[in-house]
């Protein structure tokens, strides 16, 4: 008999369940299988009604994030062999409203992302004939890390502030804001500072640091937020000391 491993999976069918509950499935254990493979096995062979999101199965699209044994993970990168002998507990991402089974509602996250104006803003846009906005490798290097985000929301599921303070803009969105602030082609750092200088923004963060620990792309959102705070504090100090000097 081939070896198997048990998966305790959260089920929530809003048309029939009052609240989410675990259902256990026994799936074949294979060395090269990740949690997502096991979920797809369940969907194909055991229970077609199990719902979950996925797409690229290679850590690029950011849609397969779930809680695996209580930690936010990309299920396409979480090997079953790391959870032996099982059972493996699979739940929808923490702090997000559950729509069905392992699928959460991300509307709020999308709203927060756009709130920080994550695009290049310029006071004056050059005419096309003037060519592209050039950037040196060093200038690219200042923000490159923060631009690697795949919007998987693992950092939100790791952050207790996100759970306690629903309006908190959250790690990925602030990291993204910092990504544009540091971009030499952008001129709207002041504008973003105004948007994020409150308790729903950078000052909501108490530096738990878990967002950085769980990020599959090494974006380091915790670093981005603390660096943002440092600039905000220096900015406030400057305008206090030389009120006539700022803009």
């Amino acid at each position: 008999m081939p070896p198997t491993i048990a998966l305790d999976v959260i089920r929530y069918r809003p048309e029939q369940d009052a609240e989410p509950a675990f259902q256990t499935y026994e799936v074949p254990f294979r060395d090269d299988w990740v949690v997502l493979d096991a979920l797809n096995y369940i969907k194909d062979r055991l229970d077609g009604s199990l719902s979950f999101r996925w797409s690229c199965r290679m850590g690029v699209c950011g849609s397969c994030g779930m809680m695996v044994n209580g930690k936010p993970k990309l299920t396409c990168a979480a090997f079953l062999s790391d959870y032996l002998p099982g059972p493996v507990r699979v739940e929808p991402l923490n702090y997000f409203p559950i729509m069905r089974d392992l699928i959460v509602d991300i509307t709020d996250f999308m709203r927060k992302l756009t709130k920080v104006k994550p695009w290049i803003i310029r006071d004056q846009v050059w005419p096309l004939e003037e060519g592209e906005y050039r950037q040196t490798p060093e200038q690219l290097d200042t923000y490159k890390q923060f631009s690697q985000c795949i919007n998987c929301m693992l950092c939100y599921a790791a952050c207790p502030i996100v759970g306690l303070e629903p309006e908190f803009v959250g790690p990925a969105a602030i990291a993204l804001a910092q990504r544009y602030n540091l971009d030499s082609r952008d001129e709207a750092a002041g504008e973003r500072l105004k948007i994020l200088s409150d308790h729903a923004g950078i000052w909501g963060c108490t530096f738990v640091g878990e967002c950085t620990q769980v990020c599959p792309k090494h974006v380091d959102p915790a670093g981005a937020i603390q660096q943002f705070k440092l600039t905000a504090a220096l900015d406030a100090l400057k305008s206090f000391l030389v009120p006539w000097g700022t803009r």
Partner: protein
Amino acid sequence: MSPMSNLAHHHTAYHPRWYRRRMSVWWWLKDRAYMKFVVRELTSVFVAYFAVLFLWQIRAVTQGPDAYAQFMGRLKTPLFLTANIVAFLFVLYHTITWFNLTPTAMVVRVRGKRVPDTIVAGSNYVAWLIVSVIVAWIFTRGI
């Protein structure tokens, strides 16, 4: 009608019924990383304790040698000795955890290159050592 069929009645494709999980007040006990964070935050209480103790000491100094001697005597009681040792350990934890977090908050660049984390964090320890040596020198000078 059972409550279940009642729910079924309310859920349609256009009226989804999301489930929002509640956060327990004990959320910080459920994860080691969260617990470490909460302990780090609580250690600031002991930092405040030393600050208050220091203010108390200054007050004793201003009230003359007798009051100061009485204050110092009080510090030698077992109660204060244990309290101070415990507080010191927590302040140490506080200091070390925050020192180690500085590279995350501060990106230092020298000639375009990012200074490695160990150097940024390490400079805190060097500064700590220098200040400690100066303080020790001031205190032992008189002896």
